């Protein structure tokens, strides 16, 4: 096996060529990557194929979009299944992309020669979100119409450029046939091209960095990629495929009644992966929620891999024993602080009633109600636990990830009529 003399077909040869001939046995353990990158690329392929099939029936106009999807579901062989698989794969892809980001971040795989790939990864995360968001509108039902209305109106709140940007995205002041055409073109032409380019670069940079990071670099045991890695990839791929098909068989992709621009449902929510963001806007002044926090996060994520880290720490899960503890504390801290602050702002503190400018009462004050505990927490980690720079970054990033997850959870499940908490 793995003999040089085996003749492969062109396609097999090409696929094998994506990998090196030999690979470190540590790098191909399931617990190293959980196959997340591979799952993402498989989902991308599944989405491309099912999307292609959907595209044969879909009509990108407000009059016909909804009916074309209903007719595809009812009249095309396996129509429902194809649409379900497309829908669920897209939902999973948001999650697996996020998990993939967590994996590379927590296993210290973003430094030195992998720095660039972290940036390409962030771009790909944005591409995945853009794919999802543009696809969200296409069914043109009440769910999609109002979710996109809400989301583009959130963009309007961005100071200085918001309105211009929102009108550009929508092709006008409201969500209408121009928006549908824009989104359709992005979803089925521009984004597929963009993502293909970035995925190729992402792959190439992995090869250039000599593959996946491994914790202990001195005892290298090299094994043949074929079959050691290939067999594992096939197992992960078959498992993913099985899950997607199984869920597609039993759970229908949502399709409410046709979009009615005159009737807003109660409540109206942004797509679920943006609900953490909408939650931010519910609790904080728009300038802070749509400009200051997003730009601060962008700078933070660009800054992370520029920090210098000791070579022997690269590839180590959670950096150190102390790092593990710090991450657990950070998760607990963020869950408690975020949920408490949401409860306080909902039930006890009505800051907008104060007689001072809204930017201070609903912006600066609640922001500092979060930043002061977070700052104190970080300070304690530094003083008491003597956390180093990377451990502090782990703590900060963990607080950010956890807060976003908590806010999304609240937005998805705990907000009911008029976006009030349901209890």
């Amino acid at each position: 096996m793995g003999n040089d003399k085996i003749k492969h077909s062109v396609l097999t040869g090409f696929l094998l060529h994506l990998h090196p001939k030999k690979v470190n046995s540590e790098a191909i353990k399931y617990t190293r990557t959980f196959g997340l990158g591979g799952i993402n690329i498989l989902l991308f392929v599944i989405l491309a194929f099912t999307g292609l099939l959907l595209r044969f029936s879909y009509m990108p106009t407000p009059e016909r979009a909804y009916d074309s999807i209903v007719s595809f579901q009812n009249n095309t062989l396996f129509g429902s299944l194809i649409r379900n698989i497309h829908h669920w794969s897209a939902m999973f892809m948001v999650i697996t992309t996020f998990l993939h980001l967590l994996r590379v971040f927590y296993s210290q795989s973003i430094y030195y020669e992998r720095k660039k790939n972290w940036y390409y990864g962030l771009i790909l995360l944005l591409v995945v979100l853009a794919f999802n968001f543009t696809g969200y509108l296409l069914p043109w039902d009440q769910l999609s119409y109002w979710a996109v209305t809400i989301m583009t109106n959130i963009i309007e709140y961005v100071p200085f450029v918001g309105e211009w940007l929102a009108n550009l995205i929508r092709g006008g002041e409201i969500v209408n046939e121009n928006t549908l055409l824009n989104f359709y073109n992005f979803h089925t032409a521009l984004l597929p091209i963009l993502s293909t380019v970035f995925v190729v670069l992402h792959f190439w940079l992995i090869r250039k960095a000599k593959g996946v990071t491994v914790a202990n670099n001195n005892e290298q045991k090299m094994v043949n990629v074929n079959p050691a890695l290939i067999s594992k990839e096939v197992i992960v791929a078959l498992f993913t495929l099985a899950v997607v098909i199984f869920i597609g068989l039993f759970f229908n992709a949502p399709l409410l009644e046709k979009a009615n621009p005159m009737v807003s449902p109660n409540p109206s929510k942004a797509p679920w992966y943006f609900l953490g963001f909408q939650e931010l806007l519910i609790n904080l002044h728009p300038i802070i929620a749509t400009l200051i926090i997003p730009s601060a996060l962008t700078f933070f994520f660009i800054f992370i891999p520029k920090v210098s880290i000791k070579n022997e720490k690269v590839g180590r899960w959670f950096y150190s024993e102390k790092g593990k503890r710090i991450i657990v504390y950070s998760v607990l801290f963020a869950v408690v602080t975020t949920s408490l602050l949401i409860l306080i702002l909902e039930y006890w503190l009505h800051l907008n009633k104060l007689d001072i400018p809204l930017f201070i009462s609903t912006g600066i004050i609640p922001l500092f109600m979060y930043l002061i505990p977070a700052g104190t927490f970080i300070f304690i980690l530094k003083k008491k636990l003597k956390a180093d720079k990377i451990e502090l970054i782990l703590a900060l990033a963990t607080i950010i990830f956890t807060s976003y997850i908590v806010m999304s959870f609240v937005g998805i499940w705990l907000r009911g009529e008029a976006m009030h908490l349901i209890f």
Partner: protein
Amino acid sequence: MKRRNFFKKIILGIVGIETGYLVFDSFKKKKKKAVSRDLFEAGRIDSFEKNRMYPFNSGKFYLSVFENGGMLAISIKCTHLGCIVQPDNDGFLCPCHASAFDKHGEVVSPPATRALDIFPIVVSDGKILVDTNSPIKRKGFKKSQLTFV
């Protein structure tokens, strides 16, 4: 910088700007410029009673006629996140996130922070015409916003 690199960057820059311009322009041109003067015909002046509110769904506004005879064409689009407000008691209520507005469109209860937009009203030939393509943003209600016949 070498001459070759200099030219390469200039050419790439020009191509980039041109491509960017093309993309943005293809977005923009969908804006209907010429049609924007179309006015929405609400009806004859004498068909409106004082102290009442008339919904014009296809024009996306509520025509409110107040006690003193002043009129406002109030946009149905909530200034919070763009949902459609519904008439409620003496004002408007947004079903999405519970913003409430009074009869003049001023915010009574958040999350909305800005009064509902209004549209300019033109009276001609005994008819009330509303310019639904040019919403006017406003902080709050002022007497000067009213149109009298």
